């Protein structure tokens, strides 16, 4: 597989996880750049050009609420999880755990079989 194809697959895999991470981080209010830094510190590197439009889409879906406020003499847009967003986050986390468990099982079974053969 060439690197471009792999990158495409990797991005696809990350896309869904990213929404989950963003929703989880916005349980406490943050402005865009602070969110980028928090995600980065949590080990999730993200392209800012992907994040900000994503925030707007999540806001359009009423999962986030935003407000402009002045902080350190700068006008900044602060995002936080809405009530609907909290419910969706809980469902998504549940889904995430199910998927994660299934993937673990599916990937571990062939490895264990291979070990037994060896």
């Amino acid at each position, binding site marked *: 597989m060439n690197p471009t194809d792999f990158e495409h697959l990797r991005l696809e895999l990350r896309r869904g996880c990213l929404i989950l991470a963003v929703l989880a981080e916005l349980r406490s209010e943050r*402005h*865009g*750049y*602070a969110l980028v830094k928090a995600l980065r510190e949590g080990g999730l590197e993200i392209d*800012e*050009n*992907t994040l*900000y*439009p994503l925030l*707007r889409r999540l806001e359009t879906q009423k999962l986030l609420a935003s407000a*402009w406020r002045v902080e*350190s003499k*700068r*006008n*900044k*847009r602060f995002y936080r999880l809405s009530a609907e967003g909290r419910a969706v986050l809980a469902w998504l986390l549940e889904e995430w755990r199910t998927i994660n468990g299934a993937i673990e099982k599916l990937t571990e079974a062939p490895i264990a079989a291979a070990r037994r053969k060896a």
Partner: protein
Amino acid sequence: MSRELTNQELLDRYIQAVKMALMLPPDKMEDIGAEVRSNLESQMDDRAMALGRELRLEEVSAILKQYGHPVRVALQYREQPGRALISPALFPLYWFTLRAFLAVWVTIRLIVLVFVLQGTSPVGTIVLHLGRDVLLAAVIIPAAVTLLFAIWEYLEFKFRYSERWKPEALAPVPPHGLHAAKPRPVVQIVGGIASLIFWGLALYSPSFFWVWGARGVFSPSDALYAMRFPLWLLAFLVMSQSWLAYTRYAASTWLRVVRIGVTAAGVALAIVLLWTGDLLVAGPNWNPTQAKSLATLNQMFAGVLALACIIVGLGFVRKFIRLIRRSSSHPPTADLAS
């Protein structure tokens, strides 16, 4: 001598370029522009704090460059960001060209329907013409323009914004903001194409015009006929320089020079035309009862030309006064050419 660009000006240019590429309603455009600005300012503050000093221009430029080309940033904010047929780099130009073509097509067909077919064809024929025009405008023109740009994209025409761009080369923010400046090129291109067609038909084939119930009622005057090529060339140049304003050459000095030259040539040609007197004279099918209408038409043309000269002249005077004021309010190193 050039005044050095400030960090704030560079950021303003970048935000303006993002907003222009968004092609969204003004309220959304301003909101997204403010958000991008806020994010960039946060990054710059962070960087300045880490360095313990104010950022230099090249450091601000590096942050903007890393943030991405304004077109790419803008495209991420659009409703459907994934466009494979036409890349983010070409999309604004494609969208603009498509709208310009459609505007010209609709204008021309409306003129033909209202002035040429009216009274000479039955209503049914006009409706049929209208139906065909709608089909052409809705399907064939977008398809043709899209195909052209898709081929352009495929051939990887040397138009790679994302790799070669420099934040410093972005267009300066116009003094009255983005809204005042944005529609100008569209109007110029549509006007330019309409002028090309009009002058082409009027001067090379005056008998095309069906007015007052017959063809060949009027002809261009000798002076106007003699100037047909410069007029056609002027319309072509106006159109081309407006189109170039949507390309990466928008902020280049040579384009500014061309713009000034084209405007000056336009004023000069208008003055010469006004000087020569009537632009239209009686044609082979003219009859004396149309004399008053012909005179009115000539007066109208003369009025439009005179008005255009006055407006452009006043524009020049205003710019000149502003230039003098700016140069007197800046230190001696200020940019007198900006």
